[in-house]
């Protein structure tokens, strides 16, 4: 990623990592966020390696309360409405939630970047067409798109990803286009044009590096948003369908038990919150790391003026 390479141009990989590490330790919230994401990743890996095997339905353990170590570490977070260890369910749901959010965001990022840059750079009819179509997509209720997807193509993860990606894409298109419009008029772009550079070359070498950081920031914020969106859709019965599971679906299923077994909705809700927060915090940290005017904050322990 070009943004990372911009850090310390002449240094070796090792020293760059060292520098990043210092920058991370210098920001306790970012460090906490990174640790949380590591835990989540560890959970996903552990689940896929089968560490939680035996997480079967056991109606006798239904809604077992959390924080009681006597049932074994797997049941430390309690059990869900079908007696499955909540810890295992959370780990299973993590891969779905994060996978869906990342896939949807990457899809809309890629699509939005390309379309936005084309719209911004070429302007004219193509640009207008792209913008009008994206206005139309913006006008759609995501619910309707989700429902059509669900009805026509069946409830599958791929459809959900597509629905989320398409409905989020206009935001990327608009931001990318706005940035391109601004950059296009700058001197160095004009200069390149004068020297005979083709539009593709200009887009890749002059415009993309400037547009990319903004888009990445938007994307990191959107990961959070998409996770919340997915949970909302699942709550209405239009998202992930059982027996598949995501944090959003767990909240939706657990909300019926808020009064009697709070942990069912609370833990996945917290997981969504902490993970989205972590994405946001790390995105902020990342932006600061890449901003020469602010970078000093992280490596020096000095407080602000």
């Amino acid at each position, binding site marked *: 990623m070009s943004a990372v390479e911009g850090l310390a141009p002449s240094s070796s990989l090792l020293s760059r990592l060292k520098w990043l590490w210092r920058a991370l330790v210098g920001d306790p919230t970012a460090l906490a966020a990174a640790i949380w994401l590591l835990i989540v990743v560890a959970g996903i890996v552990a689940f896929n390696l089968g560490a939680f095997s035996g997480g*079967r*339905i056991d*109606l*006798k353990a*239904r*809604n077992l309360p959390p924080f009681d170590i006597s049932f074994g570490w797997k049941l430390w977070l309690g059990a869900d*409405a*079908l007696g499955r260890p909540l810890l295992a369910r959370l780990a299973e749901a993590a891969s779905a939630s994060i996978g869906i959010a990342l896939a949807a965001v990457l899809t809309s990022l890629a699509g939005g970047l390309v379309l936005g840059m084309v719209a911004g750079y070429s302007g004219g009819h193509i640009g207008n067409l792209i913008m009008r179509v994206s206005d139309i997509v913006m006008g759609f209720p995501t619910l309707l798109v989700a*429902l059509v997807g*669900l*009805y026509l193509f*069946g*409830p599958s993860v791929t459809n959900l990803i597509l629905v989320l990606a398409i409905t989020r894409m206009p935001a990327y298109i608009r931001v990318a286009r706005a940035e391109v419009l601004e950059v296009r008029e700058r001197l160095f772009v004009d200069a390149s044009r004068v020297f005979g550079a083709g539009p593709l070359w200009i887009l890749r070498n002059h415009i993309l590096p400037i547009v990319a950081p903004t888009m990445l920031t938007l994307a990191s914020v959107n990961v959070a948003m998409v996770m919340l969106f997915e949970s909302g859709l699942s709550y209405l*019965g*239009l998202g992930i*369908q*059982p*027996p598949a599971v995501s944090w959003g679906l767990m909240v939706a*299923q657990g*909300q*019926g*038990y*808020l*009064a*009697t*077994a709070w942990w069912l909705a609370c833990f996945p809700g917290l997981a969504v919150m902490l993970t989205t927060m972590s994405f946001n915090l790390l995105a902020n940290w990342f932006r600061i790391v890449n901003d020469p005017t602010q970078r000093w904050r992280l490596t020096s322990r000095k407080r602000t003026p």
Partner: protein
Amino acid sequence: MTAQQPLRWGATLLTTLLLGTAMASPASAQADSLTVVVTDEAKSLDPCDTDLSNNSRVLRNNVTETLVNLDPANGAVLPSLATEWSQVDDLTWEFKLREGVMFHDGTPFDAAAVAAALIRAQSPDLGCEVANADLKGVVFTPEVVDPLTLRISTDIVEPILPNKMASLDIGSPSTPADAKTRAPIGTGPYTLAAWNEGQSVVLAGFDGYWGDKPAIANVNIFWRAESAVRAAMVDTGEAQIAFEIAPQDATTANDYAYLNAETSLLRIDQAIAPLDDKRVREALNLAIDRDGLIGTVFHAGAQKAMQVVLPSVFGYNPNIPVWTYDPERSRALLEQARADGVAVDTEIVLYGRIGIYPNSSESLEAIQAMLLDAGFNVRLEMMETNPWLAKLIKPWEGTRQPSILQSQIDNTQGDAVFTLPNRFTTDGNTSTTVDTALDALIANASKATGEERQKLFQEAFKVIAVDDINIVPLFHMVTSARIAPSITYVPDVQAGNELKLKSITYR
């Protein structure tokens, strides 16, 4: 400006906001008014649309009344707007109407009003629920003999005509004949005072009511989608009755569980292999631990079902045994079938409907796990209502995969004829059964009367459950209502369709 200043303003603002809201307190109950909270807004409030609970809970016997009522205990026909009735010949019945009854608009209630309501309900242009669900298949022709005598004749024999009249709510003759109304005028103890769309329905006592004046004069009906919210409304005093409380919320002393006339089941598509093999269908039944489901995902008051109607329904067969949980035998049956070349490893889809009853998807996840344990290859697919209906109701499109479908059958009308023909005969629009002998049995039962009718229907239930094993019966379902201790109200098996407001008083 220092940085602390805006912070302090913010804090002040928030405090003011919170305190300001805390001062006011939610509305609480008054002695002559009652608030009821249901799941969903009424759809039309037309007297001829009383098959769905959202409409009929508001209207039936509150705003509009029927010629007769059914006894919730045993389905016996009881007088209401008609005082007596008799069969004149095979195709004709005569009803004597109650004297001195008046509609809310001042029109007197008479035979012409009933005739108009009966004709209106059957109008093909209106597409009334009553016609589509309760009166269908028969043409009812009214004839006014005198103001208090009405004859109703039918085109085919209708042995349970009085039962069917329990579904026909009588609206005033001023109800438009060619359009649905949103302002029903009936003879009931309450008038529709207001319908604030999206918010509430308000009923007010009717001074000219022919019967005893109800104790509670003003009734508000609200709707909230969340069970937890409905339950909380009774706790906070915002409502006195909350219907459809989910099992996990129904844990207080104010929660009253009652059989709701629904029976849950899994419908087997027995036209498709391997489900066309009876051993496979039996194995399905043996693989499900019904006792394990009761009191966990299903309410503790649910009763294991052996057939799809409740004991209070005419035609119920008390001699059909309940399935026992026997995974060993289930596996053995599957092995037997496999040995005979039945493709038992084919994937079977378990179609479920989101929210068909509380914990609907959890119950299917549990059942799926039980079936997987028994050696079935089952995939669960949860659907939204409309696509689920497309799987339930014929015509079915395309090639079908072997499937079992989560379903629920209700019978509030008290006779097996409202359940069997449509669901278990070859021509039934939700039936997967193709069995000409069973078709004939059900047809004969529908035409018979008395003990003969009962015997034939009981036989039909036995064929379905035992001889052919056409279904996986689950439970006679219970629903919970949360009822404020300050009122007397006991929901019965009809509570899904009828909120008997005039029976309620404050303690």
